[in-house]
């Protein structure tokens, strides 16, 4: 047997010279323990973690770092500027612009897609109504005239009490046009569906 190696008492395992000095006199059900020094990288991780933690808590509670709410306010102010500017754009309905969009070759196709993605779940296939009113009859709850500008204005702001959302921050101007276009396209189809609601409007 090599002189440099020796067996541990309990387990008959082979230890080298350096380990032998690190073996403690502990023995639990045959389990022995070395007493290796703490790995330096671990010690530094420990110190680093604790230091970071203390610094972090100090920074946010005592050093005047912005709170979550303050951070949020700043970020929200920036996005609100964008949203406000966007609302100015979508908020004005210009009949000429609408007509020119309407004349484009894809307008009917886009109307169908926008309707399906956003309106269908409440107003049902072809606008016959279900959760939302029937769009194909002559009875109307929220508008007093079925014209592009009035429909546009209503879709823009919605009516929370009736469960109609405001779409101004969700749809682009073209998508709003498309929604208006769809409603116009189903006028007077009088599909059997939801029974009439609201006032009768005659064109």
């Amino acid at each position, binding site marked *: 047997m090599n002189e440099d190696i020796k067996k541990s008492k309990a387990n008959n395992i082979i230890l080298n010279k350096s380990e032998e000095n690190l073996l403690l006199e502990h023995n639990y059900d045959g389990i022995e323990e070395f007493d290796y020094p703490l790995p330096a990288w671990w010690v530094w991780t*420990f110190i680093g973690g604790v230091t970071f933690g203390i610094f*972090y808590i100090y920074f946010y509670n005592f050093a005047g770092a912005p709170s*979550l709410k303050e951070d949020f306010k700043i970020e929200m102010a920036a996005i609100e500027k964008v949203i406000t500017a966007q609302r100015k754009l979508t908020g004005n309905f210009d009949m000429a612009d609408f007509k020119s969009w309407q004349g484009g070759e894809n307008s009917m196709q886009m109307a169908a897609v926008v309707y399906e993605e956003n309106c269908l779940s409440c107003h049902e296939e072809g606008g016959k109504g279900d959760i939302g009113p029937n769009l194909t009859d002559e009875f109307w709850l929220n508008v007093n005239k079925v014209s592009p500008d009035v429909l546009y204005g209503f879709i823009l702001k919605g009516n929370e009490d009736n469960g109609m959302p405001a779409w101004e921050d969700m749809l682009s101007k073209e998508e709003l046009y498309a929604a208006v276009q769809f409603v116009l396209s189903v006028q007077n189809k009088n599909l059997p569906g939801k029974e009439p609601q609201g006032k009768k409007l005659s064109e």
Partner: protein
Amino acid sequence: MTTETNSQDFETFSYDDKLTKMFVIATLIWGAVALFLGVWIAFELASYKLNLDLPWFTFGRLRPLHTNAAIFAFIGNAIFAGVYYSTQRLLKTRLASDLLGRIHFWGWQLIIVGAAITLPLGISSAKEYAELEWPLDILVAAIWVTFGINFFLTIQKRRERHIYVAIWFYIATIITVAVLYVVNNLAIPVSFMKSYSVFAGVQDALVQWWYGHNAVAFFLTTPFLGLMYYFIPKAINRPVYSYRLSIIHFWSLIFVYIWAGPHHLLYSTLPEWVQTLGVGFSIALWAPSWGGMINGLLTLRGAWDRVRREPILKFMATAVTFYGMSTFEGPLLSIKSVNSLAHFTDWIVGHVHSGTIGWNYMLTSGMIYFMVPKLWNTKLYSERLANIQFWSSTIGLLFYIVSMWAAGITQGLMWRAIDDTGKLVYKDFVETVDKIIPMYWLRAFGGTLVLIGFLILIYNVYKTIKNAPKDQVEEKFKALPLSAVPLDTHGGRHRKLEGLPLLFSVLAFLAILVGSVIELVPSLVSNQFIVMDARVKPYSALEVAGRDVYVREGCYTCHSQLVRPLIEDKLRYGRVSEAAEYVYDRPFQWGSRRIGPDLHRIGKKYGNIWHYRHMLNPREITPLSIMPNYPWLYKNKVKFEVLTKKLSVLAALGAPYSEEELKQAPAMAKAQAKLIIDELIADGVPEKMVNKEIIALIAYLQRLGVDMAEEKKDEVTSTK
């Protein structure tokens, strides 16, 4: 163990291994159940049809059963098996009481059966990993204390002067779990199977996540570190790497861990100083956690060739590796910027499972392969099957983790995507769900591999036991009595402390108490952390009934009720949530995962008929929805007569109901239901639905988050 020459002083004793065997069998049975439930609900998310339109099979009811079964039934029984096996050997004594051991075993199994019956029935207190109702809570506490008494009495009659590091971890576990469980489950009963939490809103959230986080710490981590310290050196037959490391990481781990709970509540309405404490301590927790990993892995050092060959060591080395991975991921996820992306996503689900499957399942498997041949005095039936289990589980777990990373990060990024006109790119929540469905299939596949691995383990153990000799006799051991074992006086102060288990236990208790008291007490005893708002009123009787339906169905497993101060939350859901809005929420229902959208601003967003149709078949309104149908809400009647009792309990807890409101609760609830049905009749709903649960649920949903709505007028999203 009796290498010295025989002397008159030696005492003869045996170990109560029968009890260990019972816990091993229970671990295998409940492990299969827990994993099967996990796989089932994973498939439910991939295909909603598996909810089967039956109340007992919906995700909302089975998910709590899965988590409770996995943590308390599977991992719990594994802990007890390993603790009883190792403690007796480490202390050179038989358990103090065989009888207490049996009471512990059968009591625990009774609790599990109770959970398996009550949770699918919707009997739930809706606090995550603490869903059991009060009678079972009391039983859990009683059985846990039985376990503790038997454990400490066993320490008392030990023949080993000093207690080994495994025992330190067991002590910390037993003390802390008792404290956590009792405090978090404090509630006032309404009936035999219904209670309301004594904490409300923000305070309930704080207590719940102090509990929830430390259930991970002191049920899934500390006992397993103890088991690791016993089974790894035993299995590899090498000394533990570093005694001094074990001292430092033990004390730092239990002291630091208890503070980190609030990282589950970042960007919530919890006072910000508590949130920052939670984050600071989470970062500081990284090294103490890794101390355990290093001691485990470096104990295996020098014998890597055996780790490659022997399944037991493979399981153990893998377990420690995943422990290291998930305890690095944890602090990472607690950093605010990472948290704002990952919170409420599947990343968290993946993180949890890299701990529970990677660490607990793997170590349990290794431990069972180690113990079973010894307990039954035979050899393992098949190493090959053990290897197959190892690879099946490891590959399954990798599928699980990677798919959840992908799903979580994808969904988190989609939620926050905003285009340059200030609009959400994916304004329909369901788009972000639909996108990750392929990941749900992959996850379910990975989970199935883990389950198959476990079934192989069961078969292997079954065959092993079957081949074992029939006449099992208890082996006799000899050791000197404690009085003949001197205190080690050369080992320093900690060495001395290891000879004084009672003092050791008191110090461990103090270590976990400091963080608990500093974080919890100021927020609990004083309401100054919550700015009260006079506009916020308690729920009406019908809304209370509806809220209890929400709780029963486990809606919180998929829906949050917390709009965070983040742009993406504000744009998608509306006004940021405030602490004052939750003061009557018992329990709080903030949730931890958005499989569906947040609901805190759902009130008045849609008409009643929308909810009526939606709960019956969500796909009629949202074609891609994966939410279950809830047809039974249209058949079950509201129990109006219990509302007086319910409101009285809430009043006793501080809700300002008038005498009239309490006495007339059933009549007032019926009147409110009448108002709702009158509106629905216009949409074709039959009048007889007036007394059904759906009406109560609609009343509750329409009330959510509307009390402080006036402020909304000042904000940009609705400027005129």
